[in-house]
């Protein structure tokens, strides 16, 4: 589904990703862990097409298409979704209006019929139940005045609605207490399917207690320096990222 090969990317003249490779097959959940500054957020931003991220080398194929050539909205329509670490507040834009505009824009781009407001509202009600999100939030401006937990749940709610093929969760656990974390994880788990893949980017192992990954990768210095199963996350938890520096770097370098 997603093949990242030797990806190099630069932000504001600074090399951040330095040869990252990753293969994600349908239905898989990949966790990407790493210390601050390793390039975790850069990966999500590059994959979703944010301006200011310059790819200097390597390739990204999504279902056989060159993802890097597509505009952000084309990537969304192709099925890529980024759950933001810091969801943006947009005063004056009604949340429901925004969701319907996004939903219909994607359908239109794929040549599917758009939903009218009644059909859309019905769909929204179904999806709301899954996320246990207050319907009142739909009448507010996008993310405006939302608590930290509400913003993150709103991201997952959008994901439930837009039904992407590949979801990238960028530090979705940051700033959440344990109850909010569980709610977010439940929302994600409800969306797991044999066709849908996830890249879960996180600093802490804690989230992976609730969203159990198939693979865990350690990102350091702009490359994946170690890959393994879930036990790798536990090892990291036990030893800290300093352990990667000592043990991971040579393994990554020789890979």
């Amino acid at each position, binding site marked *: 589904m997603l093949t990242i090969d030797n990806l190099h990317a630069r932000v504001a003249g600074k090399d951040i990703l330095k040869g990252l490779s990753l293969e994600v097959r349908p239905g898989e959940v990949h966790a990407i862990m790493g210390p601050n500054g390793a390039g975790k957020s850069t990966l999500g931003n590059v994959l*979703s*097409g*944010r*301006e200011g991220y310059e790819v200097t080398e390597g390739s990204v194929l999504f279902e056989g298409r060159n993802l890097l050539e597509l*505009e*952000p*909205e084309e*990537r*969304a*329509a192709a099925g890529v*979704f*980024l759950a*933001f670490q810091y*969801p*943006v507040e*947009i*005063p*004056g*834009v009604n949340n429901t209006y*925004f969701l319907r*505009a*996004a*939903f219909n*824009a*994607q359908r239109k*781009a794929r040549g599917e019929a758009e939903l009218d407001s009644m059909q859309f509202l019905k769909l929204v009600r179904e999806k709301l139940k899954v996320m246990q999100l207050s319907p009142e939030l739909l009448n507010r*401006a*996008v993310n405006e005045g939302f608590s930290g937990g509400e913003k993150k749940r709103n991201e997952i709610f*959008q994901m439930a609605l*837009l039904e992407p093929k590949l979801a990238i969760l960028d530090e979705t656990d940051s700033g959440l207490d344990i109850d909010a974390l569980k709610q977010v994880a439940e929302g994600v788990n409800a969306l797991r399917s044999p066709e849908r893949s996830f890249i879960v980017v996180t600093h802490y192992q804690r989230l992976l207690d609730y969203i159990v990954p198939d693979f865990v990768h350690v990102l350091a210095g702009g490359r994946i320096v170690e890959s393994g199963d879930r036990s790798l996350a536990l090892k990291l938890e036990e030893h800290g990222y300093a352990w990667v520096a000592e043990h991971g770097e040579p393994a990554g370098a020789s890979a």
Partner: protein
Amino acid sequence: MSQPARTPFVAALAGAPLPASGIAWLDEARRGNLEAFVAAGLPDTRVEAWKYTALRALAQRGFAAGDAQAASRPIDPALLALPGAGAPALVFVNGVFRQDLSLPDALPAGVSLQPLSGVLERDPEPLRFALARYYREAGDAFARLNAAFAGDGVVLRVEAGVRVAAPLRLVFVGAGAEGDLAWHVRNLVELGEDAELTLVEQHLGAGEQGHLGTQLGDFALHAGAKLHHAVLQQAGTGSSLFRRSHYRLDARAQAHLHALELGGALARHDLCAELVGDGAAFHTHGAFLPNGRQHMDTQLAIHHRAHDTVSSSTWRGVAGGRGRGVFRGAIVVAAGADGSDATLANKNLLLSPQAEIDTKPELEIYADEVKAAHGATVGQLDERALFYLRSRGIPGAQAHALLTAAFARVPFESLSHEALRNHVEQLLLAQLPG
């Protein structure tokens, strides 16, 4: 003695016959104001109030005085429709009252609404104070023209204690004629003690025309009166429109103004409020959206002259193409106006590199114990918000339009009349690119 050469603008109007009223004091005031206009001509940019609005191009054009055919110009009724806001109570075409287009619903008891032309024929004396005025400031050219030539307009009075729920709609149309002409309307609105009224004022264009329109409006609010005033300025794209509105608020009176500036090649609004009674409150909310080569200038001056007076002003400017926006927001708190509370915010958005907005908040405070805050910004759309929308699948152009409309919409969120608010929303979406 050498006189400065008359510009074509002045020359065309200098010798025009004044409307014959048969009222000695009115004829005298008209002559006096025309003489003052001819002597001074149009202000140049050395006059502070006209610093950012140059009238050089206008001065080179000549406008015929009035429209003799105004009464018979065909107007498409669809132009006058405003869903949910009733039929227009009074309609003026090129400055002339049109009975055939005006459909006042049965006016509630205690409301008097008449065209100025009718009042001048029957009972002009009560208007003497307002209409016999001389305009003496350097920048008063258009007020002088209006005082000299305006023969029609709105005379509206709501008796004390009368509260009118349904909005009352006034429509001013500039209609295509054989050539470009100058038209003028003079409006006088008075709300008695504790009276309440919602007024919708529309400026529309019909057919190709490059007319000059002027409007002078006086709004007198007696103690405890409440005025909701919505102005939708959609004058014809080639026209020039100069409006001047003066609000006087007695004790506890409240005015809420919502103004949307969309039309005209050159549109200027001078808005002056005097809060003369304790506890008076004046709230303005507005947006101006110059596009193409449009020039829009809003000059706001709010004078706090009594205790515990309140004013707030929320204005947004969005300039696209080679559009130019000008905003001046002056708040003056007079000595002794203790307990006054004044806020003013003007945020602006530039959609193109050739667009320009000049904004100038001014605060003059001569009283103690005053709360005042003001601010003005000019910027571009938030890149983070744009990316957020696009990352959800909304195409770039649509994301731009959505965010721009959201920005311009903010002043109108406090517009309580739902049909009007929806209408404003539609106008904003239609005006913005995307």
